[in-house]
């Protein structure tokens, strides 16, 4: 693709520094092979040693230490063969110092004493060189966190052979059907810890498994993707079967005119659109007047059937139960039956705006404040099949692609359909259509939802994973048609 806003580079982790749109999970994962039976990348004792050393070396008034360790492995295939196959392991030690009301951060991936002393000194020196910060609060002491289960040993133990064997079955399926498969199978482990000189020590471990596949069939294509902490929930064969079927059914697409259509959006299509709303729920964004909710809190702008929470404790969600400053994350009702009700607050934002922190702060120092990273939409009971059956004329969308914001306040997004776009007529899918460009306001869209499917953990390519339903939406604006 092309220039991207900072994205889901580790959906959670990147966003912990800056509200990023998304980037491939920088993850953590365990490289394969002999070491794969070990539970964690770095033993807890090593984390504690690093924190202890930094706190010893630091001469700042207050010191915060964040240590992240990851192993990640990704098997990539295209043209029915594995063409890239990678593994990485790394550690990051990040130190924030507070000196005379000023704060700054320095980080390294070297963990010897000399390097740890140097990074502690660098953070202090940087802090001294800037003007005092207005809203700096004392660092947190010890906190209590609600436990979340995010670590699955089987995911951490996956080997390159495990991934290659699954890929082999998928590419054999494609070859047998004279189709071409491309995709990835990745697994990883990440550990993160946060400590302060005031006594806070927070730790979190999680695993991640992801399978994504595209089937090409002449001039058509189909796609499917899943992402879970537990690898046993990933079924590469079923995903391949779905992508294969979509590719086959997408053959010989016809061109129909652009215009406003009823659309049935599968969960990945919904995810990649509504994911663009996440930073709008930050109190700092509203205060800066760059959120689409500026002046709209408490007003009914979406349909009665739209309710949204941020909820890290939802079993389909991922991530640690604490924020970038160590504040316990709270479940926050963001939108209640169409009405934006609440925002999320970092500690500093909450103090400035006379509110309570919600546990959504990003790592300091930053200019963004906070962000909800665990959006959960209320689902409904209408299956995709029922949505199709109830549609006289509409478009069934598998996924969207290259979505970018055109207007931040009306929240107009543009992008393309991709990998399976179908015409629905008189309650049935009647064939494939050429891909559309859309220009659609999210505010209008969420006021025009006619039916919702059950909320599921969806994985797309433009937003980090969230819990969203399929949606049937009226008057969706397709503005132009492309060549395929």
């Amino acid at each position, binding site marked *: 693709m092309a220039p991207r806003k900072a994205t889901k580079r580790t959906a959670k982790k990147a966003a912990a520094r800056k509200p990023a749109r998304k980037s491939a999970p920088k993850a953590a994962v365990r490289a394969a092979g002999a070491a794969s039976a070990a539970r964690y990348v770095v033993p807890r004792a090593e984390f504690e040693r690093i924190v202890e050393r930094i706190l010893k070396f630091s001469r700042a008034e207050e010191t915060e230490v964040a240590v992240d360790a990851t192993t990640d492995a990704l098997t990539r295939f295209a043209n029915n063969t594995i063409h*890239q196959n990678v593994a990485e*392991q790394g550690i990051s030690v990040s130190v924030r110092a507070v000196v005379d009301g000023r704060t700054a951060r320095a980080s390294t991936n070297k963990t010897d004493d000399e390097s740890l002393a140097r990074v502690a000194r660098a953070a202090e020196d940087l802090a001294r060189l800037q003007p005092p910060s207005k809203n700096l609060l004392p660092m947190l002491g010890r906190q209590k966190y609600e436990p979340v289960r995010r670590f699955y040993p089987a995911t951490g133990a996956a080997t390159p052979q495990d991934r290659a064997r699954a890929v082999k079955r998928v590419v054999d399926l494609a070859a047998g059907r004279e189709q071409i498969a491309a995709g990835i199978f990745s697994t990883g482990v990440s550990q993160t810890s946060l400590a302060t000189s005031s006594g806070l020590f927070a730790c979190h471990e999680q695993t991640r498994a992801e399978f994504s596949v595209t089937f090409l069939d002449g001039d058509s294509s189909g796609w499917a993707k899943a992402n879970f902490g537990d690898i046993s929930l990933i079924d590469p064969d079923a995903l391949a079967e779905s992508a294969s079927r979509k590719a086959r059914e997408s053959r010989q697409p016809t061109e129909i005119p652009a215009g406003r259509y009823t659309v049935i959006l599968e969960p990945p299509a919904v995810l990649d659109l509504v994911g663009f709303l996440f930073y709008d729920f930050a109190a700092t964004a509203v205060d800066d007047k760059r959120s689409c909710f500026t002046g709209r809190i408490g007003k009914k702008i979406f349909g009665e059937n739209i309710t949204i929470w941020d909820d890290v404790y939802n079993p389909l969600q991922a991530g640690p139960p604490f924020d970038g400053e160590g504040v316990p994350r709270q479940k926050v009702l963001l939108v209640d039956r169409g009405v934006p009700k609440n925002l999320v607050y970092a500690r500093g934002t909450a103090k400035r705006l006379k509110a309570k922190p919600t546990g959504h702060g990003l790592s300091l120092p930053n200019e963004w404040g906070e962000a909800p990273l665990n959006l959960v939409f209320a689902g409904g009971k209408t299956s995709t099949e029922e949505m199709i059956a109830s549609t006289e004329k509409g478009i069934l969308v598998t996924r969207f692609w290259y979505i970018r914001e055109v207007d931040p306040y009306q929240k107009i997004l543009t992008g393309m359909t991709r990998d399976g776009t179908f015409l629905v007529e008189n309650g049935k899918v009647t064939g494939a259509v050429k891909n559309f460009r859309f220009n659609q306001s999210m505010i209008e869209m969420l006021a025009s939802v006619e039916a919702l499917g059950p909320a599921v953990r969806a994985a797309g390519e433009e937003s980090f994973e969230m819990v969203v339903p399929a949606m049937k939406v009226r008057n969706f604006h397709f503005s132009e048609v492309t060549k395929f």
Partner: protein
Amino acid sequence: MMEDWANLALDTAVARGATYADVRVIDLRQRELSTKNGQVGTLVESESLGLGVRVVANGAWGFASTDRLTKQGIEKCAAEAVAIARASALAKLHDVVLAPEQTYVDTWQSPFVRDPFRIPVDRQIGLLLEADAEMRKVAGVTIAETGMVFRRLEQWFASTSGSRIHQLKMQSGAGIVASSFAEDELQKRSYPNSFGGQHALRGYELVEELDLVGNARRVAEEAVALHTAPQCPEGVRTILLDSSQMGLQIHESIGHPIELDRVLGMEANFAGTSFLTLEKLNKLRYASDHVTVVADARLEHGPGLGTFGYDDEGVPAQSTDIIRDGRFKGYLTNRETAASVGEKRSNGTMRAESWNRLPIIRMTNISLLPGSWKLDDLIADTDDGIYMETNRSWSIDDRRYHFQFGTEIGWEIKGGKKTRMLKNPSYSGITTEFWNSCDAICSRDYWTLWGTPNCGKGQPMQTMGTGHGASPARFRNVRVGIAFSR
């Protein structure tokens, strides 16, 4: 020490059965600073040192990386790369074949005058706060933002073919943005470009030349003025694009489709494929006769984000014709894809984000060569058109046919004169139709080598800087305004 690490990794890989291996040891240092409304936002320094090993074993690829730079850590990493390659061979259709390349023992450094890491941070922050304050002097500005980013990347490359290459790249970038919210509308202006401003393989002298403070008030005033400007009309029009928007137009509708890995289906699951299928080489009329585009990674092209001495598989920087007088002439290749399409040699485009990523085909400096027009003459020659400046939104389909761009500001051209300001400009089109409608390009005097620092590609995702040289240009019969069509 770096060479010792690289040699240890190579020796281990070969001992484990690799038939080819290359190693990159990278020492990266970065500084990021930003302000918002008079307060320091980000103030971070980071360093990262690590090693990545790429191998062929059993005829298939494997790659592993580590920051545990001990004998044991490096040996384990290299062994793991070989084990991964053997796993790749479980789903192999044919053995990896690489186009031949000479071996090189060399050192290369990007030139810079002032090391940005030796400039005191308080001085850098002071400059940003000054620009920030200048923007906020304009009534109606709701957010003033500024930023600088510096990267120093030192790299040692070694391969079992015998190459030993040391490179040092210094990169600087800076920019400012004024935003204004009023009456249900958020408008913004950036200088000298969106995407964090201008970025180049240069030192702090780049920041000093930009004159952020001197441009702060103008962009702030324009951001506020946009609220009262009329909406860009919808219809089919003549448009002129400024050189920064031309840079992104080149990036999206020429730079990506010419990546041979995309053309060959290797990116089908994520970034997509390309309409530039192999039979189109040397046959397709990509653009009008006015258009010549090169992929040039050599320093003589300029200090772009796609400039280097050698790529990340040890191939020297080259200049390749992409479009010559409108005809499609070349792809971006690496050693593997070059061999697969019968080319004698890679044209040197393999790059990785850091030590923990596999090199993949990336744009170097994909640049439109200048024409002969003066900008004032081009405007005077345009009876009815819209001049669009500075990218605001961008999107293109996964085969790179259909695009839509929005820019921050537009100017109506009537009777050969730039007249009133227009807000929310946008335009869309089909790649080849658009480039064939180009009828004028401004001269070298208006040509800038823009740095795009945030190009995403690959799985796992890699962010890479690319360069795009361009001057303002004119296009006929372009659809405008559709992004805001109701």
